[in-house]
């Protein structure tokens, strides 16, 4: 209480003094600040190419302006709706399934007894994250190939996976979950471990069951992390993992309706054109949409739970 009053007083006294008082903290941030400025902010000047007809000879500043024409190709066909639907749809499903599953695993890892088995579990669930998407595509093929695939052989089915679009939304969800859950659960697990043990002790003293402890201590403890990770994921909902949607289905044309995301469309369309302006325009569109969404989401979070908003 006293601190709050003090802080308010400080604000009135003028910001300069307050800033100076924290010089040590600012000094700490300097290396990171410089890095972000160089690595991230300076190249942003280059975003102008999204509005230019880029010519190699003339460079970024010398090329002619092109207005918004670089953005047109994203919306000029009936695929526009398809790719936006796919990109958003998959991302939403990925965020929900990924979060729920990773939290479940993190909590189980926390509740489980046995130091050795814990170590074994943690190590092995990380393996899929380490395998590159191209190699994952080989593995998926080894399972789904209709003639020699593991699934058709083992279960005696005769499904031609790569020709039936209806299976692929599920396959994508499974592959994405498989590849990412280990990594995400370890983030959540680290947070669970960080929860103040005295809270658990208090809960045990109060006679809470395992479920009550999870519900009343663990999940509230995870809440900030969940909110942060979800907000960050929302910022990227217009992006998609190119490898997942292009390489894993082996670019099979018959799956087009369910595999075409913005990134895949842009890649296929611009593959031969090497068009810097249009690529930049696509990226810019994805960023702007993500930005608007995340600002909105953050605003909502700010209303409900001020402490956990991103900014």
């Amino acid at each position, binding site marked *: 209480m006293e601190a709050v009053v003090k802080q308010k007083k400080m604000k009135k006294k003028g910001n300069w003094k307050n800033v100076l008082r924290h010089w040590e903290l600012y000094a700490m941030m300097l290396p990171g600040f410089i890095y972000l400025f160089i690595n991230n902010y300076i190249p942003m000047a280059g975003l102008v190419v999204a509005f230019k007809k880029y010519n*190699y000879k003339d460079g970024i500043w010398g090329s002619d302006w092109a207005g918004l024409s670089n953005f047109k190709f994203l919306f000029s066909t009936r695929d526009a709706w398809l790719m936006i639907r796919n990109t958003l749809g998959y991302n939403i499903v990925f965020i929900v399934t990924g979060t729920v599953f990773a939290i479940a695993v993190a909590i189980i890892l926390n509740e489980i007894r046995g130091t050795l088995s814990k170590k074994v579990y943690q190590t092995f669930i990380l393996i899929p994250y380490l395998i590159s998407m191209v190699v994952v595509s080989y593995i998926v093929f080894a399972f789904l190939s*209709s003639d020699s695939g593991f699934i058709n052989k083992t279960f005696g089915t005769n499904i031609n996976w790569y*020709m039936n679009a209806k299976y692929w939304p599920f396959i994508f969800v499974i592959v994405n979950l498989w590849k990412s859950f280990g990594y995400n659960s370890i983030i959540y697990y680290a947070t669970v471990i960080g929860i103040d043990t005295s809270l658990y002790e208090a809960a045990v003293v109060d006679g809470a069951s395992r479920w009550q402890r999870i519900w009343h201590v663990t999940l509230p403890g995870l809440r900030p992390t969940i909110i942060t990770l979800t907000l960050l994921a929302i910022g990227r909902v217009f992006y998609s993992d190119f490898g997942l949607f292009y390489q894993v289905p082996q670019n099979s*044309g018959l799956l087009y309706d369910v595999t075409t995301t913005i990134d895949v469309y842009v890649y296929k369309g611009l593959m*031969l054109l090497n068009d*810097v302006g*249009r690529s930049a325009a696509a990226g810019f569109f994805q960023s702007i949409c993500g930005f608007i969404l995340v600002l909105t989401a953050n605003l909502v979070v700010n209303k409900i739970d001020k402490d956990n908003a991103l900014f």
Partner: protein
Amino acid sequence: MKKKVFAGVLTAAMMAGMMAPAAVSADEMTTLSLWIPTLATYTDDAVAKVEGKINEYMGDKYGIQVDLEYVEIGNFEQAVNLAMTTDEVDVTCYFTGEGQLSTYVNNGQLLDITDYFENASEELKNTFTDVEIAASSMNGRMYGLVRKYQYGGHAVVVMNKDIVEEMKIDAASITTMDQLEEVLYQVHEKYPDIYTMVPQSTSEMTWAWAQVCDRGIGLTNYAYADWGTTELKSLFESEGFAEFCSYTNKWYNDGLIMSDALSNTMEGSSMVTAGSAFCCFHNGDVEPLDKIYPNTVESGLFAPARAESTGIGNLQYGISANSAHPEEAFTLLGAMYTDPEFATLLAYGIEGEHYVINDKGRAEYPEGMTAENEPYGGFAATATYADFLILPVKETALYDDAKATVEEWDANVEVSPAFGFFYDTSELTDFVTAYSNLESKYKDALMTGSVALDDVLPQIKSELESIGFYDVLADTQAALDEYLAN
């Protein structure tokens, strides 16, 4: 305040970097960077050594120095396109197999070398035929020099030798789809456990467009025509394509073609070699394929050698528009085609160390060396160098005189009647991207026979309609007719 000044300095540095090319090394002689894609394994030490030798020679003869930049072929386009945004590149290889010359030119990546070429030595000018000059030109301006290689190719089927011998198939007599069909059914009955036919590569049924139709007309990605005609069509409405697909669809439905064709990740030839498949279509050229792939037999010709509009010199060498020394760069470019000593050093490395000339006057690996352990690697991967006709003939070659063999081949190739015609698509980029996506959706599925053309043609037509395909095609046709009339 300090931060602001610092930021200002950085921004200035950045802007300068984006605009002005960085200063070149202060050596007296100009150093030119030469970018070559490679598939071979090479060591930096060997490359440095060869570079040293090359520079001794080039310094004396032309007063220039060369900085060799080898890049793995899979990364090459990506890497060189980035590098061309700066002045790092002087002379570079680029691929135009799918009509990308217009891309490079529209993007302003390549230097117009017309004037340099006109003033070049007779020797250099005589190296290229008119067709080859046309292949590296757009709108009458020249942008590069094609790799000296034979034109286009023919269409054959590559078959597994064991099965051919076991079943006493007369491979050379098979020259039509009907004859092939008969053999395929016989083989399928006798060897039901292997794939009777597989795509040539991944999900692409064939690269031998000599058999299907002419494509890439006007260096576009959408204009096709049946061989020998100049009536432009969509791929899906051309007769050659329809005929090809009607066979493959029947074969696919009868289990002759691998059912995973659309998601295949392997090379057809390696499956045929291994005996897991009986045959695949293949494009061929001067060298017989059964000499290249062990345990295979080549069929007769399904289609004679033909060159599509984009099929000549699909690998070219040119000068980056951002090169700081275009004149010297042209000297280097020319030397790759006219100076056998330099070309050989570049491609094979140092004599006695990376290759030797045997008593027959042919080049081979020094004793104890193979493609796997020769450190320079050029010998194993000559395919990406500018001119293999001026190099010493390899021991493994089937001909004595590369130049004569290739000239004889070229003389007999049917060149696309639309060859040399160029249609400017730089204002049609949105259409081109939409079309790329549309074609990739259907092409492989139809060519592997996984889908019947009749079932999807109405849908394809309506999609083509919706992206304005037929209007663009009509305009292209009009331009082509005008070109042909002149």
